[in-house]
């Protein structure tokens, strides 16, 4: 393409936007609304799954050993458990540590526990506390551990695992369906808006075709226009969401102060690390394909 033709295409693209500013504004607003909703939803879904993940991490499995198991045997069990991919981290607590902790928790360091002297009543309480990265795999891990030598007992919180697993599943199903619905609606609305804009200019397209313009030449300004509108339509809601996100988080935390110690929100930068590229690609993609396919039927002249 010659520089003069490229310049002509760019100029035509911008002119199209200016001349049909009402359609341009309608496309941008439609896209902005859809991407805004997508952004809000994305933030909610991410925070919910972040929260359940954090809760999951707080639900450990506790593994106790058979009487008389040696530290080497316990560490061997630990090594085997560590190889499992669902294990996020694990902590070992020796019988002495367990007793020290109990003394601290229940006797508050008073002399009441002195009666036991060096006779540790929790002598068989050495244990591993295992935290999972995916709580739905808890049962599988428990059966694996129960099959290991020197293991006496495995304690798990099945109800917590089931509840959190269910929440996670529901959140992912709902999020996927809503994102798909939002995408379909936005593609439909935007291609509709662009087609109306192009239909208004079908005479101009006809003239270009009679003169001998290639499909590529006719389409280029419209596609450029679609891309520009798509990017602007994505940038507006991203900026608004950025401004709204922190305010919403601090509003929730002040309004419901009880949540302060329970709930932690994902920082805005972490959310936007994904949301910015996804939003821009969505805007660009919808603008590009919307204009590409809307011009197609007008090119059959």
């Amino acid at each position: 393409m010659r520089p003069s033709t490229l310049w002509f295409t760019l100029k035509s693209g911008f002119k199209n936007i200016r001349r049909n500013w009402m359609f341009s504004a309608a496309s941008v607003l439609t896209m902005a609304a859809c991407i805004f909703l997508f952004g809000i939803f994305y933030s909610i879904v991410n925070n919910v799954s972040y929260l359940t993940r954090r809760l999951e991490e707080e639900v450990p499995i506790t593994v106790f050993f058979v009487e008389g198991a040696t530290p080497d045997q316990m560490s061997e069990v630990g090594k085997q458990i560590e190889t499992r991919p669902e294990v996020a981290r694990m902590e070992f607590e020796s019988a002495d540590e367990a007793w020290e902790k109990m003394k601290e928790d229940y006797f508050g360091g008073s002399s009441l526990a002195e009666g036991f002297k060096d006779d540790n009543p929790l002598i068989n309480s050495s244990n591993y506390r295992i935290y999972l990265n995916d709580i739905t795999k808890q049962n599988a891990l428990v059966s694996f551990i129960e099959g290991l030598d020197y293991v006496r007992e495995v304690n798990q919180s099945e109800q917590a695992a089931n509840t959190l697993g269910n929440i996670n599943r529901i959140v992912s199903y709902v999020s996927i369906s809503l994102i798909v619905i939002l995408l379909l609606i936005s593609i439909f609305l935007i291609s509709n808006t662009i087609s109306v804009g192009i239909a208004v200019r079908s005479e101009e397209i006809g003239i270009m075709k009679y003169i001998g313009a290639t499909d590529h030449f006719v389409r280029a300004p419209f596609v450029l226009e679609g891309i520009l509108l798509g990017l602007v339509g994505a940038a507006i809601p991203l900026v608004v969401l950025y401004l709204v996100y922190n305010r919403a988080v601090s509003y929730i935390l002040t309004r419901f102060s009880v949540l302060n110690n329970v709930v932690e929100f994902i920082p805005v930068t972490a959310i936007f690390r994904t949301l910015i590229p996804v939003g821009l690609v969505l805007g660009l993609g919808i603008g590009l394909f919307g204009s590409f396919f809307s011009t197609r039927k007008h090119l059959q002249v």
Partner: protein
Amino acid sequence: MIDLIDVTKSYGKGLPALNHANIHVDKGEFVFVVGSSGSGKSTLIKLLLKEIDSTSGKIIVSGEQLEGMKHARIPKFRRKLGVVFQDFRLLRDRNVYENVAFAQHVLNRPNRVIKKRVPEVLTEVGLAGKYKSMPDELSGGEQQRVALARALVNRPEILLADEPTGNLDPKTSVEIMKLIEQINNRGTTVLVVTHNREIVNYMRKRVIMMNQGVILSDEREGGYREA
């Protein structure tokens, strides 16, 4: 330059819009195609522009056979033709210069060529002083001149005119026809579709008369007779 060999075009059931038509136009000729509405004139123009395909027969324009021509080839073929329409089809939001330059941009011409060629052709059609006027500021005749300038700016081999005087008064119609004749005198083959009896009789050119898709007569220096 233009050959239609036993060409038929049907749009469905009923009489074909063009029925076994045979036309031969030599390079540099000036031809009127006349007939009332529904005679097949517009179908003929659409076939020559490769806007529609014939149902049967063979069409050769400027050495290219239109049947089986690939979609990607059509733009290159159309660059050999200049077209003007009854309703001028100018871009309303661009001035005279831009309307004509547009046809050169479409062909990927460099700016220096466009800046030289557009004033040349505007002078040719008698609009040298109206570069900056918008289409709505021009009379019908002037708008048709702009359309002619746009059709001619790429130096086409053939000029196709579909009712070019349909929206013009008799005096302006004669002026536009004189201009088209001048273009023809410079070597461009001209095919004018019209039902303007006065103009056809005034010009005394070759006249092909059509009725209901059939060619009734083809006369050198003919006139417009009743079908």
